[in-house]
């Protein structure tokens, strides 16, 4: 049995999400080979070759892969698919984009966002935004999996350099082209990878009041999120939304401010390590999942909190 793991990288560094997800690959019996793709990626290749648990690293260094598009990357993996039994990637927007395309080309089902490896063909994943946990078994000979990074510990990159081999791009389709990328330039971390998140709900009353959250977020190095109620009310854009139809997050610390705790919202944040709820309604369901609850007026609490930090 041999697994192929697709390694993501940015700015010469292997992505933290990939380092976490590769741990799932190591839990499957047999060798793990890595695949890293890009243009001028020597630095990332050097780091990737030292990932613990990797026995071989394949790399494709080609200007055409300066930006990785699903149509092209899928073909790169498909070209070498005969050598592998398992195909894994982190469930990032890249992994989610590419792996199902690969699975269909291989005529197999994909198992998405696994959170544990039970055996060679059995995996655990969440369904209904984490409201149920399913153990699933696949009968496909080749197995395509994406891995939820937050469920695994990151592999270290201090092992001896593994075997490194170059591969070439062949039969690459040109049905799509990269136009541009606009990465959010914020000192704040991104919602899905933030260690601390502070979110506001309908209780914030309007969009301007989100500044109160911004100030606390600045002190904590936190990302700012919102409930669907706050998004629907037009306080903040949709990409702030934490919940079943928004982003599913699991930070170390989640602070819910003026959020009642609708099922929809809880589904998106209840795997957080520590939950703090600040709400003036002591009956609010958010207090049922909060480790620390503060029944108080958020307009008083937020400036105090900013001061105290």
């Amino acid at each position, binding site marked *: 049995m041999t697994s192929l793991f697709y390694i993501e990288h940015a700015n010469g560094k292997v992505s933290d999400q990939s380092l976490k997800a590769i741990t799932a690959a190591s839990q499957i019996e047999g060798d793990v080979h890595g695949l890293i793709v890009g243009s001028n990626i020597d630095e990332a290749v050097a780091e990737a070759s030292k990932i613990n648990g990797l026995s071989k690293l394949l790399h494709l260094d080609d200007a055409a892969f300066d930006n990785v598009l699903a149509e092209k990357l899928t073909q790169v993996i498909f070209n070498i698919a005969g050598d592998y039994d398992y195909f894994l990637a982190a469930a*990032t927007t890249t992994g989610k*984009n590419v792996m*199902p395309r690969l*699975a269909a080309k291989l005529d197999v089902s*994909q198992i998405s966002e696994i959170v544990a490896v039970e055996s060679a063909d059995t995996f655990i994943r969440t369904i209904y935004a984490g409201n149920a946990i399913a153990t699933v078994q696949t*009968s496909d000979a080749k197995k395509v999996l994406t891995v939820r990074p937050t469920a695994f510990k990151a592999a270290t990159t201090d092992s001896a350099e593994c075997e490194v081999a170059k591969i070439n791009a062949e039969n690459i389709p040109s049905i799509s082209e990269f136009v541009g990328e606009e990465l959010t330039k914020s000192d704040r971390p991104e919602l899905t990878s933030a260690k601390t998140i502070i979110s506001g709900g309908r209780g914030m009353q309007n969009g301007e009041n989100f500044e109160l959250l911004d100030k606390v977020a600045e002190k904590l190095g936190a990302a700012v999120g919102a409930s669907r109620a706050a998004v629907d009310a037009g306080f903040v854009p949709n990409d702030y939304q934490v919940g079943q*139809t928004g982003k599913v997050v699991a930070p170390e610390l989640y602070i819910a401010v003026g959020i009642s705790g609708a*099922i929809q919202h809880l589904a998106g944040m209840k795997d957080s390590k520590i939950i703090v709820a600040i709400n003036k309604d002591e009956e609010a369901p958010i207090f049922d999942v*909060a480790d*620390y609850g503060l029944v108080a007026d958020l307009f008083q609490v937020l400036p105090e909190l900013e001061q105290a930090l």
Partner: protein
Amino acid sequence: MKILVPVKRVIDPYVNIRVKSDQTGVETENVKMSMNPFCEIAVEEAIRLKEAGKAEEIIAVSIGNQSCQETIRTALAMGADRGIHVLTEEKVEPISIAKILAKICESESPGLVISGKQAIDGDNNQTGQMLAALTDMPQGTFASKVEIDGDKVKVTREIDGGLQTVNLNMPAIITTDLRLNEPRYASLPNIMKAKKKPIDQKSPEDYGVDVTPRVSILKVIEPPKRQAGVKVENVGDLVEKLKNEAGVI
């Protein structure tokens, strides 16, 4: 140009999910069902493209039991022109759904397929990408903006950390993310009108697709429950506990 929009019937997002006591799945009997929210966004986007004169006909497709007709009717009431219902009692996996849709693409030749990025029941996030692979079409997944320009479609995608824009040859597959649009509610007159719009009934066999599942669900359990913690008196207490007890700040 035709636009094909696959729509899925799922448990309403505002319903509390209950896991069956025999651990075989979640309770769906007597539970409110709705169109998957990401599919609603897909229907809305197709309608907007038609309203902008970029498309002539919108076809809504649903694969599943008899009740899926209601979901197709919802799409028709929003503004889709006709429906295709592929009737099956089997729980159809994304790979098989994609195969059926690929066959429908062969006969209907849509210029675009717009689907939701994922259904909120299985959370698979696979069907659009699989359909793209089977039809050799390019894919614009997790779309927050769609612009048609001649025989190309420019798609702005929500990626981790920001936005990416790609230009795709048409026909192409687009999967919707939340920010793409806000779906309309169907008006009463349109709900009445939708009753007269045609729905073609088919079966997976009509398309020569074997929908036997490849993945079996061995067990479905409830996630570990969180215990309610303690109430603190004031901000000072809270900060002290977060620092010294929880160690998270």
